């Protein structure tokens, strides 16, 4: 398959009063055409920041993209001009955010906001934009599109708002849709509806999706390939099937073990990973997960493992072979 987006050595830091937060520490990955890529990790692991960095949407200052390239249609998103990038934002790459309440402008009508990217990126009349919007509203399952377009965000329900936000992101038929935890703020039934809808839209629109979440269950439903992030590093990357069958990184194992299961006994406690993820104030010379890792060996505390390729289809950043508990040869 063709590489649609190729990210190389992306590094984003935030310069705060407390120190330099190393949010994203040299991540590289590819996105293929038509593929859905899941990015999984705890809050603060750098998954959102890395996606916002791709479109240079992190606030600068305090944020700064130190290095990296992101090739999309022969354009490097990280070094191209602001004008060039603006033509891509919302048109070829668009984003859907977590909380549709705060990500909609409260004082503008939803219809106006949904039409905005289409009017901006295409030479069309208001009327044509409106027709396009009604089409999109039908796609995402908003009934009574005329009335809804005239409403303000606070008059929508949570699920409706997220549908409208997805409609807004799809107005220009983007090649890549970046979804930043779009279902986290919704209850489970709505969540399922939205995911089904996105799966259908992905096929209809023939687009690639990057889906950020901390819910491995959603990924299994939706994505072909998964990236697991921890402390600003990619620590494992694999096809969904392989990852679920045989996770290679202790952190991924911990994540999978902490999923609630239907066959759990009543009052059985969920598994957890002890400790909290670190805030990275400096370059680390140990594996960032080592302090919480049950497999850690001496080498983990002295050297940060690089992301290494296995069997030509998956990668992991760990010194230990989790099957034997010994250092990988």
């Amino acid at each position, binding site marked *: 398959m063709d590489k649609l987006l190729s990210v190389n050595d992306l590094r984003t830091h935030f310069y705060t009063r407390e120190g330099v937060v190393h949010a994203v520490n040299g991540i590289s990955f590819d996105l293929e055409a038509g593929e859905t890529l899941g990015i999984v990790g705890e809050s603060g692991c750098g998954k959102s920041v890395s996606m916002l960095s791709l479109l240079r949407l992190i606030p600068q200052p305090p944020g700064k993209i130190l290095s990296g390239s992101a090739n999309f249609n022969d354009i490097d998103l990280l070094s191209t001009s602001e004008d060039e990038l603006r*033509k891509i934002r919302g048109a070829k790459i668009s984003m859907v955010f977590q909380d549709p309440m705060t990500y909609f402008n409260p*004082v503008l009508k939803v219809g106006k906001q949904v039409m*905005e990217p289409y009017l*901006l990126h295409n030479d069309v009349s208001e009327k044509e934009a409106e027709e396009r919007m009604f089409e999109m509203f039908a796609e995402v399952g908003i009934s009574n599109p005329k009335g809804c377009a005239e409403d*303000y965000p*606070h008059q929508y329900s949570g699920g409706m708002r997220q549908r409208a936000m997805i409609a807004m992101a799809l107005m220009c038929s983007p090649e890549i849709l970046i979804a930043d935890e779009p279902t986290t703020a919704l209850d489970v039934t709505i969540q399922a509806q939205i995911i089904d809808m996105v799966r259908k839209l992905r096929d209809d629109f023939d687009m690639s999706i990057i889906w950020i979440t901390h819910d491995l269950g959603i990924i299994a439903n939706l994505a072909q390939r998964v990236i697991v992030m921890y402390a600003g590093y990619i620590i494992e990357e694999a096809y969904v099937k392989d990852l679920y069958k045989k996770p290679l990184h202790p952190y991924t194992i911990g994540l999978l073990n902490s999923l609630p299961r239907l066959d759990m006994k009543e009052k059985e406690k969920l598994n957890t990973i002890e400790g909290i993820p670190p805030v990275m104030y400096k370059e680390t010379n140990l594996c960032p997960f080592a302090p919480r890792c049950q497999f850690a060996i001496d080498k983990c505390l002295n050297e940060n493992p690089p992301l290494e390729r296995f069997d030509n289809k998956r990668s992991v950043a760990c010194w230990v072979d989790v099957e034997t508990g010994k250092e990988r040869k």
Partner: protein
Amino acid sequence: MTTYIIRRLLLVPLLLFGVTILIFGMLQFLTPAERASLYIRDIPKNERQLEIIIKHYNLNDPVYVQYWNWMVGKADPITGEIHGGILRGDFGYSRTGSEPVMDMIKHRFPATLELALLSVLPIIAVGIWLGVAAAVNHNKFIDQLIRVLSIIAASFPVFVFGLLLIMIFYAKLNWFPTGRYSQWVLEEIVSKQFATPTGFMTIDAIKAGRWDILLDTIRHLVLPVLVLSYISWATFVRVTRSSMLEALGQDYILTAREKGLSENQVVRKHALPNAMIPVTTMAGFTVVGLLGGVVITETIFNYPGIGSAAASAATQLDVVTVMGFALFNGFILIAANLIVDVLYGVIDPRVQLS
């Protein structure tokens, strides 16, 4: 929207009623004799007169009767002519102005309104502009400069600033004189060579094509406008700046940028409408503040408006005039609040439902 406005309008009579009660109530702190004594010179010799006045004006009647008389007027027992009555537009006779209070307001209010409008419009326009400029360039030089200037302005006393301006621009340079017009303009007005149908000197001068009079008017307006507005400017800039900064930090700004809007469009279309919500409230307060501010400003610059008249009436214990002006001020405040409330409904769609 319409129902929202109608609901606000329905409140107005109630508020007006409240204002009259409040102002009338304050008068009741004085005994009938104290109130009557304001009209008599040399009281020990004329004690009899005191009683006559109390009887004539029914100052010993129950409070509600007096309030009724004050509101709708009272028929003279002999001639049957009705005197007084706020509702009839009769605010009583001003001792210090030597004319009915209503006429005094009619004569002097255009001058004050002209001064206030010329202050308020630049405050809003320039204040918002500077506030936005500071917020967009957050922590850069221009932001720091605007912040420092507005803090200095906000903490500079009006009377000091006013006197400083008079000393420099009137006494020393003689660029901007005090008062409302020069002697020759006054003579033209008195001799009816120059008509002032609207009462606004600037508008009348432009309408008549009298550029010399317009220039003279502007020379007299520069200093009062400056003194009246600089503190409001400072607060306006700061409120706009902080609410703009808050708006720019919101999630929907990220959405707007993500759509591919330019920074200019993001500010104009997405941040500004939100930042205007607190600024509108501020605008209401500013108008209210200006009405109080005219008292000092007009007094400093000897400007013949409502404020200077109210100040001299107050110092000479002219209760009728002070009450009339207080009532008039109350009406204007209610009107200003009504406008702000309606604007609120226009810019913030969430207001109408609650």
